[in-house]
């Protein structure tokens, strides 16, 4: 299978001893939106810098669209759009001037550059700032301009390193919305972030990295299933009467219940079939069910569990 992004035993050592990456192998399929998660210093940015040709690996290989980045950076980087850390911008230039230069770097024609500048600035909500010097821009606006630069040439692959770092809640929502849009357009997105809620919201799968090594990777869906701990939260139209509560307790599949106002947490064996049966029984008992949701453990809990396992191993 041809992967959009692939790394083979990627290693990077800074100085003589500090191993920032230690044999990282990744396989990211086309059209996938993958979260790259880990604590500060785990090696996320180092991986991204190698993938975007900013630094060279000590050993191993990084491929983009099957092209070795270190061997053929020009060809490999042509199909990538990247936002890395908090890039600086030339504060005496305007977005139009900056984007025009990068458009030319990607070999775009003048008329196409002008059209794409309009489209991308519209997308990142900076259309009125096209001819204003970036020195007057806020952090959020600079970040959005950097995203505009990353997508100017309509790349197949978007590599984003902490794209919401330093943004206010509105800015975070805007970037998240953009990511959803990129996903719907079929773009491959490799997203490094320490915000697990963001990863859970927009990614198909997640790779956990710690101390330069991949310690776990899976789809968001299967992590959710794996972490299902057998609790379903049911909200009823009105608080249950003592009789209704007793009727619930009498259901064999339910081990115990916690009642709080009109919401009841039902403990069961965690099997999906049991969940279906319980819902059917509740409806057959004429209880007015407003919502019925499995209480899975969040990505944060999974993150803590895999990081703890890793520490245990070490």
């Amino acid at each position: 299978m041809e992967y959009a992004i692939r790394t083979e035993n990627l290693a990077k050592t800074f100085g003589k001893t500090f191993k920032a990456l230690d044999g990282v192998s990744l396989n990211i399929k086309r059209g996938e939106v993958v979260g790259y998660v880990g604590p500060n210093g785990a090696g996320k940015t180092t991986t991204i810098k190698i993938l975007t040709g900013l630094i060279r690996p000590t050993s191993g290989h990084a491929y983009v669209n099957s092209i070795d980045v270190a061997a053929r950076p020009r060809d490999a980087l042509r199909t990538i759009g990247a936002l890395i850390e908090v890039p600086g911008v030339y504060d005496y230039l305007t977005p139009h001037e900056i984007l025009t230069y990068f458009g030319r770097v990607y070999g775009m024609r003048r008329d196409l550059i002008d059209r794409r500048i309009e489209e991308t600035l519209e997308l990142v909500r900076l259309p009125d700032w096209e001819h204003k010097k970036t020195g007057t821009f806020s952090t959020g606006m600079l970040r959005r301009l950097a995203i505009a630069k990353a997508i100017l040439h309509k790349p197949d692959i978007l590599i984003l390193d902490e794209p919401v770092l330093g943004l206010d809640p509105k800015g975070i929502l805007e970037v998240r919305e953009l990511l959803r849009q990129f996903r719907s357009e079929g773009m491959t997105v490799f997203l490094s972030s320490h915000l697990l809620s963001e990863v859970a919201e927009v990614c198909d799968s997640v790779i956990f990295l710690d101390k330069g090594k991949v310690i776990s990777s899976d789809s968001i869906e299967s992590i959710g299933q794996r972490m299902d701990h057998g609790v379903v939260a049911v909200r009823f139209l009105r608080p249950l009467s003592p009789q209704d509560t007793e009727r619930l307790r009498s259901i064999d599949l339910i081990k115990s219940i916690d009642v709080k106002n009109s919401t009841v947490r039902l403990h069961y064996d965690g099997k999906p079939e049991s969940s279906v049966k319980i819902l059917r029984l509740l409806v057959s008992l004429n209880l007015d069910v407003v919502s019925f949701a499995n209480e899975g453990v969040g990505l944060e809990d999974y993150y803590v569990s895999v990081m703890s396992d890793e520490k245990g191993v070490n």
Partner: protein
Amino acid sequence: MATNVQSIGAGVSETWLSFRFELLKHLKRRRLFIVAGLAIVIPLLFYIYYYKEHPTAADNFASTSLALMNILVLISAAMFAGDAICGEFEKKTSLLLFSTPQKRSSIFAGKFVAALMATFLVVSLYYLVLTLQIGQLFGWGNVPAELGKSFAAALIYSTAAVSIVFFVSSILKRSMSATIVGLLALLMILPIIVMIITLLNHEPWYIVTYSAGLITSVLGGSSGFGPGQHGNVMRQFTPTFAKGIAVMAAYAVVALAAGMAIAVRKED
């Protein structure tokens, strides 16, 4: 073979793009206007404050007016090349610039050529104003032929100065440090070394700032050190044209090559 030709073609195209972008940056930061302004004002000030008080011959007027050319070249080199490499890393614009499909060597070559062209423009303006002044004051027939040799020496020295500052920019982390160290090296450290070697009665022909003395010495002006004020006789050296040009060219080539080699390997 065809791949090599394509690669060279792509490199030239990238260098041209980088050169144009750098020029745009110099213009937008108004640095080019400021230094070009100095190149016009300084010779005019020489005329107003020197020639009117001490009328002299054309070649003497030219060599006196060019006394500050050395400093103008250094200011220009420091302004245009000081932050050419380290500035991108210091301000993190490297993250935008180097993650694109172009060779770093092409980007830096474009930056070097832009700094060089900006400095050439400044030097040319200075000589243009000076030539116009000489033509007006002494008649066009009295414009010294050696002014052309002086101009050639100034251009070669500009190339060496830009290369040296470019090299300093590749080894330091901060633009301000690179600018100051580049200026100090060419304005103070190397001239002090020249003075010490001269005091030891040796010709410092291998020092680039000594060779830069050609800018005025070809017109008959002083380029080195003469008899001391207190009667102690110090031998005066004057660089020969061919050797001076060769030394400046050598500094330019070596500093540029070393700067490029370091710059392309530099990592965040």
